[in-house]
């Protein structure tokens, strides 16, 4: 396991939580983004992610570095899965530990926001109505992301 990685196999979130835990950490936040079946009444049948893998891993590590600078004392691990995913499966995991809980929440949310704006990973979805769509998930259906 690398602390910042793109993986093709199912993600075990606990490994990332264990990785960031240290004796001086009082708080661990673990975020998992899952493939969602329903978005505004449209059913997702199939979903696959692709990435520009070396650049994506470099960007994940950079986000981790930004976090350790902004919230000193935190430790972070992030993984994103690519390939075909089933409903409910984990696409992304973010683990952050810190001495105090506030930092662990803030840093974790910062990570997912940064991933969504900068890490070269793309989602391809096939909807129940037959349409297929690649790219910025905020565009369809309407203004809501699917999945997280």
């Amino acid at each position, binding site marked *: 396991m690398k602390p910042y990685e793109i993986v093709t196999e199912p993600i075990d979130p606990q490994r990332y939580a264990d990785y960031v835990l240290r004796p001086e950490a009082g708080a661990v936040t673990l975020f998992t983004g899952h493939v969602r079946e329903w978005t505004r009444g449209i059913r997702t049948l199939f979903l696959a992610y692709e*990435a520009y893998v070396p650049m994506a891993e470099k960007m994940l590590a950079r986000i981790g570095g930004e976090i350790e600078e902004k919230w000193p004392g935190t430790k972070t691990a992030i993984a994103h899965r690519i390939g075909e995913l089933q409903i409910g499966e984990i696409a*992304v995991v973010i683990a952050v530990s810190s001495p105090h809980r506030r930092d662990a929440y803030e840093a974790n949310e910062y990570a997912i926001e940064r991933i969504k704006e900068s890490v070269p990973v*793309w989602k391809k979805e096939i909807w129940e109505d037959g349409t297929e769509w690649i790219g910025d998930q905020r565009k369809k259906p309407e203004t809501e992301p699917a999945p997280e």
Partner: protein
Amino acid sequence: MITLYYFAGLREAAGKAQEDADLAGRTVAELTAWVSGKYPHLPLDGVRVAVNEEYALQEDVLQEGDTAALIPPVSGG
């Protein structure tokens, strides 16, 4: 020569994942114009360019042997 990568919808629209292009010495803006000229149907709206796995500026100049990637709007997470 530089190596040019296409991802996601751009790969599907271009019909290829990568190609070599004689763009050493040209800027990132010129690279985009070259792609747009060769594949007029490519949706380049919101596309960023990465050079050697780092987001590049429009005025950055490509060097012999660089890898450049067209990065459509990302949708990870």
